[in-house]
């Protein structure tokens, strides 16, 4: 009996009138946990009852504490008939089970009824006394912390990142049980809510056990999902990354939880002179597989698609042996794991060594009717299969690990598409093991990690490439090979050298399919999938080129299945990576060259495309430095770039033709217009309207190129459903409708948020579903953050400053630290920031006149200098000449000033009243510091109505419901003592309507991390580090206190 749960019901307010005669209510409360129920007295005739109950005490196992939610029911007492329920509150007491989080839950909770929505509020106090349990074979996993955040949480440090944890539990869906025919919709909804609450508690406990087995103490990037499989049941599944986290003791030092490369160097006795070389290699293909294994011995095989658009080249010579060593190390670290997957999207510096490209796998399954809740093996096996596939794809790319990993499903009737995707990567073993890495290797590792471009270098052997790729020498370090395009599912590494700003890029696609049953349906879907993947990829590639960019981050491809169509929606954030080559333009080629007017039309189109590219380059400030061809080394010639379909070994030999994807020839990305379809494609390329001026958007945590966020944030959810006219639907019309839907939605968002300009929509998360035959539903959740326009103009400068800041603080903290550090961090930066630095350094009065003169000289020389290498050496020299002290003052001076200015110019916080809870899908709050994580918020709600018209139709109904969900999330966070939810995500929003019956139902599942944050302006010390650190959630290379 290791726990005592104590609950006190204080008061209620704004209760609904339950007695028409008196216009009042005789309310009382039932408090239930497990099988024990307590009741308060009836408070007669009041809409604001004051119960002030005793403490209700539940003595329970900690296993139950984890699984069960506390259930509070408010009822209206009725002497003659049954008591009427007013509504319920479910409280997840998990946050009280680990010591660092909340100690008490106390506050006003909305009383929720699945039919009437929120009906007043109730004030509750909950406490838990937990006794130490020494039982080694316990079933509970109290104390394991859970985070939805997909990076190491702000006030923690990652000691070890253990790896992938997953679990799923299954049950019958109460909505489909026989009893549902005789019970009320309310009873059925409540049964469902309770069951899901119970299941997610159980799931979390089981995952926690796995983490304890791995000797971890936390799960980061925890993602829990529900599959409503209808008659075949309800699946709750979760994935996450097990970690051992250390709480950072000193809150004053706002430090991301990770070791910086410089730290490593300090620790080691031998400090090598920094090398500017890049010793390993990397690439960026998309590696996709579409598998389909059906139950009932029915199997359809679909070819595995590996596509990329690159040529091949020769290896960087120095890299060879080292790479092998590194690989060996990592391999041994990862081999113990069944799946070397990580749900993280941002990493401690040095963790991510190389990125291979996107790997994804899909599989079409038929849901089986027979169901045994205690044996979820089939579902387990399905996912195991997919993960195995992902693993092998990653291996094919020369990677041992998959990062930014996620899983999803799309269900329509009995067909289910399982999808998994991630980014193949090579990781630094240091974080994966506990003290097994010898210092020597670590040393080499550090010096081989050029900041800003290292992750772009191809991880696979050039001579033994899994696919044809187009490689060039890295434009940053010139030593290693890089692909011409890089696709990833992770956030942009904070140290990546980026030119200009990023933007949201979406590929949208619909495909009609015949209505069919069971196997035939599954087969049809399986056959369509590879083509969809291919087209989505082509669209992404075209749009990326049109933007003049060369890399995609945060790529998320969603394929949804409906009765008569499939939808594909890919979102990603395009950026221009300084390390990758400048993308070539798009060239249009006609099929009938003899036709004069046709020719003219083509050239007109070509001109339009070229104009668009030029405009985009200007819009996103993409001005890569001019570099002489000789120095870069010309791209390795490759006769024909193409992607092809490969057959994965596991698949049976279906007839698959090689598809000519014609991607990638550096300067001629040819679009052949051979039919109207292609024409449409080109048109659709040009229909995407850029956001109005002052707006930027991305689907990653932060917008590349903007660092100076101000504190105003606005999180929102927008939902649209359109009905397609059922008459003669064609793929083209569908595509147009879908495209318009998404574009109009974005336009509406820009319009609505116009008062926030200049601002950026971050973490734009689109979800598409097909709730019914002719309905398309798109749900968007994002956060709009304002930023300071004046500072935004100097993005490159701030970038340089930030890293210098880092260096300078290091220096300050450890004065014995050698000079080399500074020169180390500098050369790794691309040309423009370095130059900026020189200028700012030279103009500062802190430098003696003579030295200043030299600096100026050098920088002006640097201006003209076209050779990259030379420039780097030059800079290193400059810095060495100046004394380290000078550098420190120089670098400290400017950020402080800027910080102060920012604080002054920031609008006074209008929302200072108690009770304001901010919500954001990001892992950080701009202009503020997270001081405490209070626990995970994971809530599931059902709302149903039988008076749809009266509630304002479908829009009114859903609008109210979403507002209520926000309110309930905020109330729970406030009760935990928090003032914000970070990493908020609406994982599900299933909406069903029946207008003829005047009915509608909606299910919403949300999650996030409840936190306490403190405004930077409220902190006494304005650390120079903070603004940068908060803007870069993936953590700048701050110093870890020892």
């Amino acid at each position, binding site marked *: 009996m290791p726990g005592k749960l104590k609950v006190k019901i204080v008061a209620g*307010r*704004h209760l609904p009138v339950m007695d028409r005669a008196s216009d009042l209510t005789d309310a009382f409360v039932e408090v239930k946990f497990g099988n024990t129920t307590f009741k308060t007295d009836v408070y007669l005739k009041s809409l604001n009852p004051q119960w002030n109950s005793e403490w209700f005490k539940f003595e329970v196992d900690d296993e139950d504490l984890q699984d069960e939610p506390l259930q509070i029911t408010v009822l209206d007492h009725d002497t003659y008939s049954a008591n009427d329920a007013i509504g319920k509150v479910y409280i997840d007491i998990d946050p009280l089970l680990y010591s660092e989080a909340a100690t008490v839950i106390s506050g*006003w909770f*909305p009383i929720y009824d699945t039919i009437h929505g*929120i009906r007043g*509020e109730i004030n509750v106090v909950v406490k838990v006394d937990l006794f130490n349990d020494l039982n080694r074979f316990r079933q509970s996993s109290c104390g394991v912390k859970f985070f939805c955040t997909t990076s190491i949480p702000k006030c923690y440090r990652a000691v070890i990142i253990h790896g992938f944890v997953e679990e799923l539990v299954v049950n019958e869906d109460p909505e489909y049980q026989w009893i549902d025919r005789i019970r009320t919709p309310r009873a059925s909804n409540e049964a469902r809510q309770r069951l899901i609450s119970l299941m997610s508690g159980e799931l979390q406990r089981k995952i926690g056990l796995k983490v304890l087995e791995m000797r971890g103490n936390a799960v980061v990037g925890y993602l829990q999902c529900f599959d409503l499989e209808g008659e075949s049941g309800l699946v709750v599944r979760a994935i996450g990354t097990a970690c051992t986290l250390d709480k950072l003791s000193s809150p004053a030092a706002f430090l991301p939880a990770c070791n910086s490369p410089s730290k490593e160097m300090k620790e080691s006795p031998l400090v090598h002179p920094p090398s500017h070389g890049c010793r390993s290699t990397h690439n960026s293909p998309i590696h996709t597989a579409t598998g389909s294994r059906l139950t009932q011995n029915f199997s359809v095989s679909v070819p595995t698609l590996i596509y990329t658009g690159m040529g091949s080249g020769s290896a960087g010579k120095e890299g060879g042996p080292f790479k092998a060593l590194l690989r060996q190390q990592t391999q041994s670290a990862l081999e113990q794991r069944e799946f070397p997957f990580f749900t993280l999207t941002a990493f401690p510096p040095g963790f991510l060594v190389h990125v291979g490209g996107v790997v994804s796998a899909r599989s079409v399954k038929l849901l089986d009717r027979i169901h045994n809740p205690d044996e979820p093996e089939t579902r387990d096996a399905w996912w195991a299969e997919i993960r195995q596939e992902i693993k092998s794809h990653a291996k094919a790319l020369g990677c041992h690990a998959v990062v930014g990993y996620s899983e999803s499903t799309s269900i329509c009737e009995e067909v289910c598409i399982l999808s998994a995707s991630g980014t193949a990567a090579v990781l630094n073993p240091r974080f994966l093991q506990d003290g097994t890495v010898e210092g020597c290797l670590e040393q080499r590792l550090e010096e081989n990690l050029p900041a800003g471009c290292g992750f772009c270098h191809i991880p696979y052997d050039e001579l033994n490439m899994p696919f044809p790729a187009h490689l060039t020498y890295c434009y940053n370090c010139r030593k290693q090979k890089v692909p011409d395009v890089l696709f990833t599912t992770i956030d942009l590494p904070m140290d990546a050298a980026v030119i200009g700003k990023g933007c949201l890029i979406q590929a949208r696609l619909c495909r009609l399919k015949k209505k069919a049953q069971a196997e035939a349906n599954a087969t049809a879907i399986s056959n369509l999938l590879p083509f969809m993947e291919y087209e989505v990829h082509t669209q992404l590639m075209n749009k990326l080129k049109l933007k003049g960019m060369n890399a995609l981050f945060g790529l998320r491809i969603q394929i949804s299945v409906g009765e008569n169509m499939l939808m594909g929606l890919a979102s990603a954030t395009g950026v221009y990576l300084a390390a990758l080559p400048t993308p070539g333009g798009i060239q249009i080629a006609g099929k009938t060259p003899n036709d004069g007017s046709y020719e003219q039309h083509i050239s007109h189109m070509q001109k339009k495309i070229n104009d668009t590219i030029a405009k985009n380059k200007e819009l996103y400030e993409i001005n890569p430095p001019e570099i002489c061809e000789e120095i870069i080394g010309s791209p390795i010639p490759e006769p024909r770039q193409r992607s092809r379909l490969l057959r994965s070994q596991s698949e049976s030999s279906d007839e698959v033709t090689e598809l000519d994807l014609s991607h990638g020839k550096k300067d001629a990305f040819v679009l052949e217009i051979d039919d109207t379809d292609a024409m449409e494609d080109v048109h659709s390329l040009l229909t995407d309207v850029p956001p*109005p001026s002052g707006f930027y958007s991305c689907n990653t945590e932060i917008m590349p190129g903007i660092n100076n966020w101000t504190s105003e944030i*606005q*999180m*929102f*959810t*927008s*939902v*649209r*459903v*359109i*009905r*397609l*006219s059922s008459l003669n639907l064609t793929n083209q019309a569908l595509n147009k*409708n879908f495209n*318009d*839907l998404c574009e*109009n939605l974005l*336009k*509406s*968002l*820009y*319009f*609505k948020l*116009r008062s926030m300009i200049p601002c950026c929509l971050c973490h734009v998360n689109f979800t598409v579903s097909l709730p019914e035959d002719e*309905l398309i*539903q798109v749900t968007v959740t994002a956060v709009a953050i304002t930023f300071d326009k004046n500072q935004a103009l100097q993005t490159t400068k701030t970038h340089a400053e930030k890293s210098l800041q880092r260096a300078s603080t290091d220096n300050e903290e450890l004065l014995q630290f050698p000079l080399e550090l500074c020169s180390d961090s500098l050369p790794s930066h691309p040309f423009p920031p370095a130059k900026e630095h020189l200028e700012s350094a030279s103009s500062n009065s802190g430098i003696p006149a003579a030295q200043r003169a030299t600096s100026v000289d050098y920088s002006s020389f640097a201006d003209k200098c076209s050779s990259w290498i030379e420039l780097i050496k030059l800079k290193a020299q400059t810095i060495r000449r100046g004394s380290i002290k000078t550098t420190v003052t120089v670098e400290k001076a400017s950020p402080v000033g800027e910080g102060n200015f920012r604080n002054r110019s920031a609008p006074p916080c*209008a*929302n200072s*009243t108690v009770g*304001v*809870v*901010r*919500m954001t899908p990001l892992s950080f709050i701009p202009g503020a510091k997270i001081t405490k994580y209070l626990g995970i918020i994971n809530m599931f709600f059902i709302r149903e109505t039988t008076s749809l018209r009266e509630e*304002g139709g*479908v*829009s*009114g109904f*859903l*609008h*109210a419901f*979403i*507002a*209520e969900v*926000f*309110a309930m999330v*905020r*109330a729970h966070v406030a009760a935990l003592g928090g003032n914000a939810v970070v990493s908020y995500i609406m994982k599900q929003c299933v*909406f069903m309507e029946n207008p003829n019956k005047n009915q509608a139902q909606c299910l919403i599942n949300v999650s996030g991390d409840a936190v306490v944050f403190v405004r930077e302006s409220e902190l006494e010390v304005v650390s120079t580090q903070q603004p940068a650190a908060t803007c870069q959630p993936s953590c700048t290379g701050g110093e870890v206190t020892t």
Partner: protein
Amino acid sequence: MTSELDIFVGNTTLIDEDVYRLWLDGYSVSDAVALRVRSGILEQTGATAAVLQSDTMDHYRTFQMLERLLHAPPKLLHQLIFQIPPSRQALLIERYYAFDEAFVREVLGKKLSKGTKKDLDDISTKTGITLKSCRRQFDNFKRVFKVVEEMRGSLVDNIQQHFLLSDRLARDYAAIVFFANNRFETGKKKLQYLSFGDFAFCAELMIQNWTLGAVGEAPTDPDPQADDMDMDLDKEFLQDLKELKVLVADKDLLDLHKSLVCTALRGKLGVFSEMEANFKNLSRGLVNVAAKLTHNKDVRDLFVDLVEKFVEPCRSDHWPLNDVRLFLNQYSASVHSLDGFRHQALWDRYMGTLRGCLLRLCHD
């Protein structure tokens, strides 16, 4: 392709002031969209009409959901569903309870009943204010009336406390409630020249001096809250006013009063001769108004009577406002020198208020 569902929900509820105004003014969504288009917003933002339509719909829906809370503003402050910064909450409430001058003039002093509500169509056509807006304003009046009707304490304070209105608006509502409660006639043609502000000014004076609450404010009262009712005129006071009749009924007293006033004002008044000629009529008028106030019907006609008996005669003789002031001051003060008159306090309570009202009513 038709949009079945289209919503936007922010963690902080977005309030567009312009759209709020259109909504309050009772425009339908399509009218509001048309008006917004005309305002040139499309050109400014580069948005399309469809975007504007969707945006307007969304705001209207939000306002509809907020309306329930606006009916009891303290609820808006404590509710959890909409996260709205305090300054915005205040704006929402203030604007919701604001009313149109033209409208309030139509219903001021009328019983806030279903019957009046039925006449709102006519008021709408007459004033050009949409019926929807008329209904909102009418319902606001009625709601405030219902809530403070049975309450003790200062009317303005009660309104402020229960509706969180600004001081100014709370005072206006106090006047509206006071007028509705006493059913003062304000709609007669001869009263048309008076603005709501004129009436509100009089209402405030009357609340301060002629109600039960006014008595309660006397420092001698041991329990000021006991009978502090601001809504109703002090019945006892009205009854006592009959005693003033002696001022005109007793011929000697009237003559003495006249001579006192005339002596004091001789040479100071531009309209002295007119005043002298009219004195008895004016005095009779003012005193008779007081004496009649025991009957509800005459209370209702108070303003009609004042205008008929005092304002119109002055106006026909072209009294300058300053002369009116001098006259009224002297007229009230001289009574203190009438030895045979015993109701000095009563006279002051009556005339003090009336003097203020009359001065306000004397304009074109």
